[in-house]
């Protein structure tokens, strides 16, 4: 029964790749929005809700990740805090897009979410950087999240800034690239811990 259930659950690297695709969608939308400006991008309602909707959905989808990929308490706490902060950022962006939220301070949920996500990713990676590619990717993602929170803060404070908007899109592409590169037992820089398992491409 347990074996059958575990076959239904996708390998963890696949989940990383799906979330990488979500980050890539966000990156394209936010790059285009930064270049054409909010007055053009927000002209059609469906487009106004597109990136906040994707962010909110990604936050919601992190809850099943929290449930099904819990192999330690720290994993559950990390995935849970990540899911909550990402859902909050998406919900706040949706509220601002619909006009139901007016206070611009709600924009700060985005840098907050990124900072909490970075901390969570760093906290739940218990191996050293070069243990495997997945360990390296998690360390890198964590620091990208913490450093990237500053860019998200710039976007929150200067929502019409072209430079801040494009930098944020580049940050999302970087996160997406690291997530796509993740494979659990693949080596990093020619090194793989013998305890990590049999390497695969």
């Amino acid at each position: 029964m347990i074996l059958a259930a575990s076959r239904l659950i996708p390998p963890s690297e696949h989940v990383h790749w799906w979330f990488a695709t979500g980050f890539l969608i966000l990156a394209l939308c936010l790059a285009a929005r930064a270049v054409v400006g909010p007055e053009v991008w927000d002209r059609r309602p469906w487009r106004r809700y597109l990136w906040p909707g994707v962010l909110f959905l990604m936050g919601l989808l992190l809850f099943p990740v929290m449930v099904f990929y819990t192999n330690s308490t720290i994993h559950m706490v990390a995935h849970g805090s990540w899911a909550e902060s990402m859902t909050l950022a998406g919900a706040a962006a949706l509220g601002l897009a619909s006009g139901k939220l007016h206070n611009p301070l709600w924009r700060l949920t985005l840098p907050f979410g990124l900072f909490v996500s970075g901390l969570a990713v760093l906290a739940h990676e218990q191996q050293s950087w070069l243990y495997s590619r997945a360990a390296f990717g998690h360390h890198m993602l964590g620091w990208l999240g913490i450093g990237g929170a500053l860019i998200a803060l710039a976007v929150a404070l200067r929502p019409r800034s072209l430079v801040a908007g494009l930098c944020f899109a580049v940050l999302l592409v970087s996160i997406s690239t690291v997530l796509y590169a993740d494979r659990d037992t693949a080596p990093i820089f020619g090194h793989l811990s013998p305890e990590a398992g049999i390497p695969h491409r």
Partner: protein
Amino acid sequence: MQISTDYAESAVTTRRDRRATFVRWLGPACALAGFAWALAQPYRITLLHPHGQGLWWLLSEPPLFVVIVGLAFHWIVAPGVLEDLEAVERERSER
């Protein structure tokens, strides 16, 4: 006076053209990156060697995901953005 007006109009047109070019090429650039990735690491596409692969490995094709996202943006999102960019610039020039 006519020369300065022409110059201002031409500057606005150039800026709009640059933005339109960026939006027009964003999706194809993304799709091209996915295609280049597929060529560089064909083993990441399990559909090319499906024997012995499980369901999840056949469903998850990262380079194809990148191509699909790029093409979807180009075909679904970009046309409307370009139309609205044109419309907003036209409204501004009429004011």
